[in-house]
C-alpha cells in the first residue's frame, strides 16, 4: 500500500481533511496527526519536504496557508508524491476556481470524492484532471 494517509492542515495546525487508507483508532490518529503536524510545521522553506516518522515517510508541500501531508511507505517515490499533491491541488483549483482553505472546509465531501477518484487502496489510479472531475460535475448537474 503506497499511500497510507493524506492530511490537509492549516498553518495553525488544524486538520482540514484527513483520509486514511488503513484502519487506525481515534486515539492513534489523534496522536499521529499531532506528532506529524508538530514535526512538519516547524520546518522552514529551505528544508526538504520529506520527514521520516515512525515507519512512514511524510511528504509534504505547502500552498499558502495550507499544508498537504501525505504519509507513504518507505519505498514510495517522494518526487512522484509531490507531483501527486500538486495534481490534487490543480484539480481542486480547476473545480473550485482559485481554491482556498474555505472551499475545502465547506466542500469537504467533494474534496474526499476527488481523492477517492485519484487514490484507491493506497495507490494512485487516476491522474487525468478531466477524468477525476467528470463524475463530480455529473453529480452537481443532477442535484
Amino acid at each position: 500500500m503506497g499511500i497510507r494517509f493524506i492530511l490537509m492542515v492549516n498553518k495553525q495546525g488544524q486538520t482540514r481533511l484527513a483520509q486514511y487508507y488503513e484502519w487506525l483508532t481515534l486515539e492513534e490518529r489523534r496522536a499521529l496527526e499531532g506528532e506529524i503536524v508538530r514535526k512538519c510545521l516547524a520546518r522552514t522553506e529551505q528544508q526538504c519536504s520529506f520527514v521520516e516518522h515512525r515507519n512512514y515517510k511524510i511528504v509534504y508541500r505547502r500552498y499558502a496557508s495550507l499544508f498537504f501531508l501525505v504519509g507513504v511507505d518507505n519505498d514510495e517515490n517522494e518526487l512522484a508524491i509531490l507531483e501527486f499533491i500538486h495534481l490534487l491541488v490543480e484539480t481542486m483549483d480547476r473545480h473550485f476556481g482559485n481554491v482556498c482553505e474555505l472551499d475545502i472546509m465547506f466542500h469537504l465531501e467533494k474534496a474526499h470524492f476527488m481523492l477517492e477518484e485519484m487514490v484507491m487502496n493506497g495507490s494512485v489510479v487516476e491522474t487525468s484532471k478531466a477524468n477525476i472531475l467528470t463524475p463530480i460535475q455529473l453529480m452537481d448537474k443532477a442535484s
Partner: protein
Amino acid sequence: MSGPSLMDSLFQRTLEDLIKGLRQQLIGEQAFISKALEEIRKEIKSTDLSTKSTALLKLSYLSSLHFHDMSFATFHALEVLSSPRFSHKKIAYHGISLSFHDSTPVLLLITNHLRKDLTSTNEFEVSLSLQCLSRIANVDLARDLTPEVFILLSSNKLYVRKKAIAVVLRVFEKYPDSVRVCFKRLVENLENSDPQILSAVVGVFCELACKDARSYLPLAPEFYKILVNSKNNWILIKVLKIFTKLASLEPRLAKRVVEPICDHMRRTGAKSLLFECVQTVVTSLSEYDSAVRLAVGKIREFLVDEDPNLKYLGLRALSIVAPKHLWAVSENKEVVIKSLSDADPNIKIGSLRLVMAMVSEHSVAEISRVLVNYALKSDPEFCNEILGSILSTCSRNLYEIIVDFDWYVSLLGEMSKIPHCQKGEEIENQLIDIGMRVKDVRPELVHVSRDLLIDPALLGNTFLHRVLSAAAWASGEYVEFSRNPLELMEALLQPRTCLLPPHIRAIYIQSAFKVLVFCLSTYLMQWGSTASSASPDNLRSGVSASVSYESFDNLSVENGADATVTRGQTYTSASITNESILNLLNLVELALGPLFESPDVEVQERARNVLGFIDLTKLELLNSSVQGEKDLERRGVECSKTIELMHDAFSKELGPVSLSAQGKVYLPDGLMLVENLVGMEMICADIEPPSSNLFSFGIPYEEKDGVSFSNLQIEADSEESNEATSLLAEHRKRHGLYYLPLGKSEIISNDYPPANDPTLQGNINDNADDLVKLTEESLVPKRKSNHAKPRPVVVKLDEVDAKPVGVKKAEYKDDSLSGAVRDFLYGMKDMVPTSSQSNLPGKASSKRKGKEKQHTDPHVETKGNLVDYGNPSSRRRKHRSHGKERKHRSAREKNAEEREDTGQKEKEKSSYCHGRHKSRQRAEEPLNVSAQTTVIPDFLL
C-alpha cells in the same frame, strides 16, 4: 425518549451550519461540539432518511476532523445505505469507510448491500461500493464478494473496471483463494492499452511484488512491454519498482532491462521518473558499470541542485550505492562534507551516514577528527547523532577498523568530555570491552581514565556517570599501570563523588579498595626488598619522602616525571613511603567513614569492607614501620599475609566470559538444584531481585563480583583464609576453562579459536586495501605512511561476538497469498506437463493462456482435488491450518452463531484448500526452483 419530531427535522442544522458555527466559536469549541453531538444522536434515530443522512454527514465530519467516536452510528449508517437515493448512499459509504473495521459488529450485515450495489447498473453506485470494499473488506466480505469483483474485472466501463482492479489487491490480501478466480483476468488487464486500466493494474502488481517478488517473475515479459512502450510516468515509476524487485532475483532479466532503463534516464525530463531510474539502477543493477556511471552522474546533478528535496534524495541514492561503489561517494565528497552543515537536519544525517560509509582503517582517525569538531559546534541532537555513528562505526566487527587503540581510547575520553555528549552508556561499554580485549592498550586506558576521574567538573554531568564508572573500574582493575596510584585514590574518593548514583559510587569504592591493596602490597614488597638489602638505602628513601613529598600534588608531579617501569609489569615508581601510606590510610578512612551508615546497601557494604580491611592491617603496618625491621618480620607477617592475599585475589586477570559459559559448568553429582531451590522461590517471592544496573558491567563484572565476594569472606574470617584460598583456587581451576585463554594455549582450539586468525586478518586487510585504493586520494590527503606499531591483539569470543544471525527457518515466509499466486503461475506446470512441454519455445503468453484455460473453473477443480490428497501427513497439516484459521476467526464467529452453520462447510472447504495448497507447495519446493530456471528465459526471449 422518542425520536426527533417533525419540527426538529425541519429545523435541522446542516453540515454547513455546523461548520459556520464551529468557526464562530473562538473558545468553548468543545461545548459547541458536544451540543452538536447531542443533536446528532437524536437526529440519527429519525425515520426520515434525509434527516438521518444529514446527521450521519455531520457525524462523519466531527469524527474525521475532531476525533469524535462514531461507532454508535454504525447501524444507522447501514440504514442510510439502504436508501435508494444516490446522495444518501454517498454519505453512508463515506461514513462506513470512516468508521468500520474488522471488529465492527454490524460488518456482517453489509454484504448484501455491497453485493446489490456492485451489480447495480449505475456505474457510480458500483464505484462507491468498490471504494468502500477497498477500505473495509475482511475475510468474509472478500470471500463472499469475489464473484462480483471477478465480473467487474472485465466490465466494459473503464471507470468501473479500474476500480475493480484496485480493489482486487485488498481482496487477495484478505482471501488468498480468490487468486484462483481473479488472477487470470487481472493479468489480462496488463495487456490493455488504456492508461487508466494500466495504471491501476500496474499499481496492484507493484504492491503484490513488494511482498513476494519471486512469484511474479513469469510476468516479466508483460512488464517489459510496458517499460518500453508506456509514455506515462506514473506507470513507468510503478513498473520500475517492480523491476527493482525482479532484477535482483533474476540476473538475465537485469541484463534485459538495463538498456531501456538507461534510455529513460537519458531522455526523461521528469525528476520523479529520473529518480526512480536511478534508484532502480543503484539498487538492483549495480553490476552494470555504465548504467551505474550514468546514474551517479544524475545523482551528482541532484546533489548540486539548489532544491533541498533533490539534495536529500541524491544523498540517499548515494548511500545506496556506497556499499558497492565507494568511488561514487568519494567523487562527491566535497558536497557530502559540506552538507554536514546544511540547514536541514535530515540532510545532515544523510551526509553523516555517507561520511561514515567512507571510513576505512586508514581514514578513521582523520574522519573522526573532522566529525568530533563538527560535533563540538553543532546542536545537541546532531552532536549525539555524530557521536553515535562514530561509536558504532568504530566498534563494528570488534573494532575492525581500529589499528591504534591508544588513539581510540583517548578519542573516547575526548568524546565524553564534549558538553552535549549523551552517549555515556555506549562509551562505558566500549571502554570496558576494549580494556578486556586489548591487553596492550591498558596503560593508555588507565591514563585516560585518570584524566576523566580527576576532573571534578565531570561528576556534575549525569550523562557522564556511566563513563566515569567505566573509568573507575578500569583504573581499579588495571591499577598496576597507573603512574600514580595515590593520586588515583584521591580522585576516586573526592568529595564530589557524592553526586554519583549509589551503584556507581559502589564501583568507585571497590576500585579504591583495589588501589589501596595495590599500594599496600607495593609498599610491603618495597619493605621486603629494602629490608633484605642494605639499610642506608631504605633510610634515604624514607628521608627523602618526608622532605619532598609534602602533599599528594607534589608527589604526582614527581612521579609523573619519572614514571617508568620499575618492577616487572608495574609502571608505578617505587616511592611509596611510610608517610604516603599513612596519608593514604587516613584519606580512605576519612572519605569512607561517613558511608558506614549509607542508606544504600551496596555502598555501605563496600565501604565497610574497605574500612574493615584497614582496621585489620593498619595498626600492625604502622607499628612495624615505626619499629625496626626485626619487628616487621615478626609482627607484620600476619598483616602482610592478608595484604598479599587480597593482592593476589585482585591481580587475577579477568577475561571476557562467553555468554554460554554458565551452561558449560559441570554439574556435580548429587547437586539437586531444582529440588533445593523450589522452596526458595516461595520464600524469595516478595524480595525484589537486585537492580540490574548494579551489574552495570554485564557478565564480566558479575564474574568479578563473585570473585571479590569470596575475597570478602576470606577477609571476614582470616583464620580460615588458607582454606578459602584453596577453595578459590579450586574454583578457578574448575572454571578456568571458561575464561579466555589469555596466552595459555592448552585450551581446545575448537572452543576459542586463536584471537588473531591469520587468514581472517588477511581478509580484513585485503578489504581495507580495496577501500584505501578508493578513498586514499580523496579523503586522506596526508595519511600516515605507516603505522608505527602493529595492530594489537583483540581477544575474540566466537560464541558471543559472532553476530546473532537469525536462522532463517524458511526460504520465504509462508504467505498464503504469494503461495496462491505462485501456485497459479508455476504450479500448473506440474499438473499439466504435456501441454507446457509441447509449446516450450517461443510463444510464452499463449502457452500461459493455454494453461490458464484449464483453470477457468477453479472451484470445481478444488473440490475434486480434495479427495486426492489423503495421505496422513498432509491430512495432519490440513488440520493444523484449519485450526489456525479457526483461531483467527474466533472473535468474529461469536457474533455469527447463526451464520456458522451455513458458513462452516464453506470455511472448512477453504481451509482445506489452504492446507493442501501449502503442503503441496512445500513438497514441490525444489521443483519450483528448477522450473524457474527453465521457464523464465522462455518468457523473456
